[in-house]
């Protein structure tokens, strides 16, 4: 392989990863902005999407129906989580929210392990396994499909949030909950909707990526964390998250290609910590508040 083709190859994998992180990042921020819950189960939804599709598929369902069932189940689980775990809390603080979602994540992960074991699972590619070549780099149709679907989701969400009444109300309640309540908006329904949305989007992400990267009970946390990195670095806004996710994906792609694939996951987390530290460094005159 020439340097050019290598570069192209890494860039492709970087953009693919970036588009995935972008959608996962949006899952985090949708829930965080409306409910103030930092939802550590986000990554588990991604895992659930892939694993449930695999499970339904091996039970004999066709691929399309398996996908549908998996997404529906994940949305239901996500909404149940909001109703049964998040809502009944009497003294909601950041700490209890975090403990609750971390606990829920470990429950989901453990149950999947008990049910389907620790082996990596793979779903067959949706559009065959041919390879398209350009600049000496190879792209499978599945990769194109992932990037396309992720782009569609992002654009669709953008349109939904900015050009529908429901989306506008959602954004309004993210900015000012009391004000939104006074306008007669039912926040409780929004919270439920956001969890459902995050569950559904996470599941779709997990399903379309399962043919490329394999899936297994333990992939949730790290995948989810990378979405969180994108959301934090993007300042919880949609454009910011997408930009940060693409940058992170490319960094990872090139880092894994040119440096070491083993430390690829560490790279994202180090970026997160450095970014957080950078945020705390303020400039003269702004030292406090």
């Amino acid at each position, binding site marked *: 392989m020439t340097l050019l083709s290598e570069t192209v190859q890494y860039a492709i994998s970087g953009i693919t990863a970036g588009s995935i992180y972008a959608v996962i990042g949006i899952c985090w921020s949708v829930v965080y902005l409306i409910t103030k819950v930092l939802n550590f189960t986000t990554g588990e939804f991604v895992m659930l999407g892939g694993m449930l599709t695999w499970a339904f598929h091996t039970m004999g369902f066709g691929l399309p129906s398996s996908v549908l069932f998996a997404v529906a189940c994940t949305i239901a689980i996500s909404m149940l989580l909001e109703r049964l775990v998040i809502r*009944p809390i009497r003294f909601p603080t*950041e700490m209890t929210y975090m403990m*609750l979602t971390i606990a829920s994540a*470990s*429950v989901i992960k453990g149950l999947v392990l008990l049910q389907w074991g620790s082996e990596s699972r793979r779903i067959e590619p949706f559009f065959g396994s041919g390879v398209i070549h350009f600049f000496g780099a190879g792209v499978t149709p599945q990769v194109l499909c992932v990037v396309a679907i992720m782009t569609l989701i992002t654009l669709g969400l953008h349109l939904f949030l900015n050009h529908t009444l429901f989306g506008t109300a959602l954004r309004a309640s993210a900015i000012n909950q009391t004000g939104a309540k006074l306008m007669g908006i039912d926040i409780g329904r929004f919270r439920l909707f956001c969890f459902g949305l995050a569950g559904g989007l996470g599941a779709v992400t997990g399903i379309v990526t399962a043919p490329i990267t394999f899936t297994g009970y333990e992939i949730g946390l*790290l995948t989810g964390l990378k979405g969180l990195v994108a959301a934090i670095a993007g300042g919880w806004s949609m454009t910011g998250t997408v930009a940060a996710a693409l940058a992170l994906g490319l960094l990872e792609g090139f880092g894994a290609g040119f440096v070491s694939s083993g*430390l690829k996951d*560490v790279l994202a987390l180090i970026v997160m910590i450095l970014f957080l530290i950078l945020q705390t460094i303020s400039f003269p005159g702004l030292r406090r508040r």
Partner: protein
Amino acid sequence: MNSKHRFSLLWVVFIVGLAVLPFVTPGTYVIGVMCFVAFYATLACGMAVLLEQAGIFSLAAPTFFGLGAYVAGILAAREILPPWAGIIFAALVVAAIAYIIGAPLLRLRGYYLACATFGLLFIVEIALAQSGEITGGHDGLMGIPPLSVVGFTLRGDFHYYFVSWVLCLGCLWFFFNMMNSRVGRAIKALHDSEVAASSVAINVPRFKLKVFVLTAVMASFAGSLYCFYLQFTTPSMFGFPLLVELLTMIVIGGATTLYGPVLGSVVLIWLREAIHVYLKGILPKLTAEVDAVFFGVLIVAILIFMPEGLAGGLDRLAHFGRRLLGKSA
């Protein structure tokens, strides 16, 4: 004064109980399990002081525990330092790391600090697993010699039972003294109101860093002893499942008191044993991740139904009892 008395009486009962335990239980099974309780209680107490008293939302306790175990373990297994010197060296290394990481990170608040320390947890776990030549990689570090101090070698559960509980009770005693002194008040003050704390000349960032480094060092001591007790370590022992366990202990026991996390670790470790003994036939495998299912459910249930934890519940019960007694007298 009165509450102080009650406090010491409870502890006397507890310590006497611990002291006679090895002589009244058959074999070493109970004592072996109680070793784990001691290690975990030390860790959980430090974390609870950070979370609840100081309001520092740090999830790095498993990281420092693991670093303490690995540094001491590697030095001893490679015969670079004798085990006891390795423990001290590990504590110094962990203190330095906690200081370097803490200085910038502790400026973060709430969720952000939690995210950063959560990231740290994964970074260290992956780094330990990836640098196989030094750490033994995924398979773990083998060949850690037993701990020996001035010619006396610690062997078996019995010895470690005493050493681990001395460490645990020592840390508790230290925390108890500290929290009832000017340093403890400064720590509580910066949690209650940072602006008021600095108005009475408390250097808020410095005290945050101090208590962070202190708990890191205690975690390191516990980790070093833990690795000599088990004589082997793997990176996955210090990852996400341990964090869930620690959170469960703190939630079970309640973090507002010092004995809460100890109570929590007694309950949690024995619960884990019960799961392993009774559910062996039903569950196909019993890894830390499967345990975490039970602990996760427990965390959610307690936070919903008993947000103050067992210690809070006991306190309320005791208060109620005293009122009853007071009325009848």
